[in-house]
């Protein structure tokens, strides 16, 4: 039996590696994408998402990202487009209101870090690879991730909207998270 007074100290020893590893997402975090319509790029942002981040650059084996995105919270600066995106042809938020991304492994690649994971969007689950940039700042950190998805692999923009001469297939996704230590 450990004396009660030692328990918190032991806990600190176990849970405190080089950096605090568990984070929540703080104010000022953004998650969005860049797509192209009629040859012109436009930006979209998800106003609502949740992310649970465990990340220690010195111990990638324990790292994990778990992100849920409220698809109906998308805004792109155009009322027509914002009205169409939640519809069945695009995100179909009635059937699947959230997109879910979960990492499966992290690895170093050159000077950077790559996170492998799976994205479930509109009922389709596919492997997705993120480029990860982690910058410690005080007790927290900023975490920047980017990837490029093909919207048609996830059936985003079906039927007549599958026409890639008007709506590009490739969608750049960019997250910039202000991490707050748990």
């Amino acid at each position, binding site marked *: 039996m450990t004396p009660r007074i030692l328990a918190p100290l032991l806990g600190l020893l176990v849970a405190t590696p080089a950096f605090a590893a568990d984070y929540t997402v703080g104010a000022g975090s953004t998650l969005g994408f860049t797509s192209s319509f*009629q*040859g*012109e790029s436009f930006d979209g942002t998800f106003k609502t998402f949740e992310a649970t981040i465990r990340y220690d650059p010195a111990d990638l084996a324990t790292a994990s990202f778990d992100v849920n995105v409220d698809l109906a919270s998308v805004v792109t600066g*155009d009322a027509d487009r914002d009205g169409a995106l939640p519809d069945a042809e695009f995100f179909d938020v009635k059937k699947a209101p959230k997109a879910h991304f979960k990492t499966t492994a992290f690895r170093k690649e050159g000077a950077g870090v790559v996170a492998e994971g799976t994205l479930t969007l509109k009922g389709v689950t596919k492997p997705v690879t993120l480029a990860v940039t982690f910058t410690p700042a005080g007790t927290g950190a900023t975490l920047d991730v980017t990837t490029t998805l093909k919207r048609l692999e996830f059936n985003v923009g079906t039927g*007549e*909207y599958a*026409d890639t001469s*008007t709506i590009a297939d490739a969608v750049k996704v960019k997250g910039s998270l202000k991490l707050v230590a748990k």
Partner: protein
Amino acid sequence: MALKSSTERWGGVAKTFHWIMALGIIGVGILGLYMTGMDRGMAKVNTFALHKSIGLTLLALALLRLAWRFVDRKPRDEAMPRWQRIAAHATHGLLYLLMLAIPLSGWLFNSARGYALQWFKQFNLPALVEKNESLGDLAITLHVAFFWILAALLVAHVGGALMHHVFERDNTLLRMLPFARLRKRPEGESSP
């Protein structure tokens, strides 16, 4: 058919501009009237894109046509009362003005609303202004008003040409038609 106009008739270049733009203006106008009532969807998106592509083409043609007009000579006016001559030339002047003002106001509207502007899916054109809702509202009001003024002027333009052809039996219409044979002027009559 000579490329340049003569004192008697319009040349091949002027005729080609006239008739291609006539078809284009009628087509783009019909698309414009039809497309705003369409249901949201790709067909609407593509119809707007076509309207914009044709409109941009007509803007470029109007500029080339004006440039050509400065190089080319003009056929002399057919014999007609002074008021008709003034009305005809005023109509032509306004038509040229609207051939520029309608596509430009459309482009301005498109820019102020932040829409993409692509020419037949080949290349994109820049926005004329930053996004600006009230300017967009003004631009589309002008775009539509200019169109209806153009439509009224076209009635006068076509009506005038047909009246001269049918009642005056002169060459006003024939000299703009491709391949038409001009009517002989009655003996003793000369144009001023």
